[in-house]
Each structure stands twice: as C-alpha cells, then as structure tokens.
C-alpha cells in the first residue's frame, strides 16, 4: 500500500512526512515526528488530551487523518513556549499547581491558548464550557479554571 506524502506546517516549521491513509494526525505527531506532548487518552474525541490547533481551530488530533494536514498549519503544545520562556498559561499552571498527573495538561493548555486568542476576557462559565471536552481526572477542574482566569487577567493587564 502506497504511503501518502504530506507537506504541512507544524509550530511554524515546514514539515514533511509519509504516512498510511488510516493514520491520524496524532499517530504521526507522536510516532513519526517525536512530538509526544499531545497525548492519546481515548482516541475517540472524548477526552481532549490530543488537542491541537489546525488553521486556528481547536481540534482533536485523534479525529483527524494525517493526510488531511496537507497545506495546513498545525500548532501543538511543543510550540507553546518561546524557547525557554514559558507561555503565561504554562507559567501560571506551574505557580498555581493546576495539574497533578499532567496527562491532560498539554491538551488543556493548547485549548485554553486558543480560547484566550479568541476571547481575552472570558467568564468562568465560558472557560468551563470551552474546556468541556478536556477531561481531567485529578484536579476536579477548580485549580485549572482559576489558573486560566488568573492568566487571562494578567495577559489583559500586560497588553
């Protein structure tokens, strides 16, 4: 079976890969490109641990075939920090201990970054609805929500 040749942009870098038709974007990120920050929790779009941004839109990498990435722009957790400088959300999640085991954290950070780019001043309810597809079995969500609200306020103050 012939492989598909894909040229796409990942975290700003033009990236080429070969994949099978049935491989998902998550398979390629993790198994071919060694970008293992995106996690596979359920593989069926329920848990959000594989959240990535494709052409500005938040999606589950497990529910997108890798072949679909041709010509698109993909942002993953690996592109969130600027070198050694953490994104304000990452910094705040550390400061406020908004994670425990950490498996859901990359997905939640990517999802929240996309939210704050769209809406710098979300209500708590908006944050909770936006993150309804990111499951966390450790924190009970409160620490996550507080960290997001705090970061949003900081980023508005800095802007």
């Amino acid at each position, binding site marked *: 079976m012939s492989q598909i040749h894909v040229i796409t942009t990942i975290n700003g870098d033009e990236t080429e890969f070969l994949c099978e038709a049935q491989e998902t974007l998550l398979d390629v990120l993790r198994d071919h490109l060694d970008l293992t920050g995106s996690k596979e929790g359920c593989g069926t*779009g329920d848990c959000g641990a594989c959240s990535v941004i494709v052409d500005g839109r938040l999606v589950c990498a497990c529910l997108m075939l890798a072949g679909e990435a041709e010509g698109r722009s993909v942002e993953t957790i690996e592109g969130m920090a600027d070198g050694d400088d953490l994104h304000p959300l990452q910094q705040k999640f550390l400061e406020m201990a908004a994670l425990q085991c950490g498996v859901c954290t990359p997905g939640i950070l990517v999802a929240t970054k996309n939210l704050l780019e769209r809406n710098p001043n979300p209500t708590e309810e908006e944050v909770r609805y936006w993150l309804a597809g990111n499951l966390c079995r450790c924190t009970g969500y409160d620490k996550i929500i507080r960290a997001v609200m705090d970061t949003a306020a900081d980023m508005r103050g800095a802007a």
Partner: protein
Amino acid sequence: MRFQSPESVDEAVALLAADPEARVLAGGTDLLVRLRMGDVAPSAVIDIKRITEMTTIAQDDGGWRIGAAVPSAEMNETAALVTDWPGVTEAADLIGSTQIQGRATVAGNLCNASPAADSVPAMVAAGAVARVAGPNGSRDVPVEDIPTGPGQTSLAQGELVTSIFLPAKPENSGSAYLRFIPRTEMDIAVVGVGITLTLDSAGAVTAAKIALGAVGPKVIVAGDAAKTLIGTTGDDPALDALAAACSAAATPIDDKRGTAEFRRDVTGVIAKRTARIALARAKGEA
C-alpha cells in the same frame, strides 16, 4: 485504505460512484471513531474539505447555503446566520465539545443518520433542503427525507450531500431547539424537539413546523402537533394541546438512555418549552 481529496464535486462523485466501499469524510467525528473501532473498513475515504463550495457558508436567495464540510463552530461564528436561524445554530452548538464542533458538520450529522442527531430536528423544523450530487447530476431533497432509519439514508450509490439550504427566514417567525439529557453538556439526546413558527400581526400562529428527535427510528415530522398551534397565540391551553400531540406523535423505544414511557412524556414537556422560546423569538423578545 486509500485517502483521496478531490477538489470538485464532480471529482468527488466520480470517486464515490466508482467505489461502493468508499466513504465520505467531512468532519470525521463519527467516521474516524468507527474506523478505529473496526465498525467500518472502507476501501477509501474521500475528504471533501478541499472542495471550495462545500467549505463555505453563503447567503442564497434570502436564505443560507451551508457547505457540507463547514464545521458547526463556523456556523455559530456567522452572526447573521445565528440571527436568522437560532434553532439550527443552537442545535449545532450542542453537539460535543469545542474540539468536536471545530470539525463536525450538520451535513455529516444528517448522513450519519443517528435517530438522536441534534441538528436534524432543528433543520427539519426550519424547512431545510439538502442538495445531493450524484452521477446523474444534483437534486434537492427535504432534510427529513435523507435518513430512512438508524444509520440508513436514502442516498443512492455515488451520491453525497454537498450543502444544506436554510430558506429565507419568514417575517415574524422564530425557531428553537431543545433536548433533554441527564446533564447539561456532552451527551446524546434522550428527546430533542425543533420548532419553527410564524405569527401574524395579532400574535396568532399562522404556520408551524415541529420535528422530534431521538423518539423514533428517524426524525419525526409532527404535523398534527403543528396544527394544534395554528390560530392560537401559544397560550397555556394551546401549549398543553401541543404537548399532548407531540407525546402522541413520539414512537420511542426503551433503551439505556430512557424508557419509552418517560420519553413520550418528556417529548411533550420539551415541546412546550421549545415552543415558548420560538414564540418569544418570533415576537422579537429573545
């Protein structure tokens, strides 16, 4: 499995017509789960997201034409569409998470043919028409005539839905969709009701279309229930009659999400609440 990404409807139809085992990929939120579960093993998936006309929302003849590959999030980001057809956009907004809505399409929701599809009763109540392309050209089909039963559609070999058309919103009309689920988010409808109604200058209902979801093998157009509203102002006795007629029109089964008896009862309750929202919207109050 082959991965194909045609750039025109004709090309997509040719690929689909040539291969009975090929499947159309729109948002993929159902198809990719089925692939993973091994429920389907298509010879090819045909990605329709490179076809410009299928990825755009356009105003058309006073109404809206929504390409079959448009994600539901984009519908809810189109303010004028939300203003015209809030019943449809709020139904699309109930399907899954932010991530799912970034991919899922209402045409896919329709063609997946789940009896519990949220956007389908809302589209039916809006009088939506699916444009179907196939080897013999294209045809327009009322949305309610696409699903024929759970997982089954009336589409012939080589045919695919290319867009959904929502007609011009009638003057003084309002649309709404509500569903019952055991929690507030991220669940499958136990009962869903879509209603569109139109008022005259005195506030009496002149036209109504009511569609019930998750209470039959496919979406139910509740014609007798719609008649109970005609000529009324949607006052309490009228809404009681509506509720009774909707319960009577429902043909649910017992399953893990609810018993048939419960669903019949809830159909009436949800119909009443949906009608109140549609009435308020028709009056410009909501």
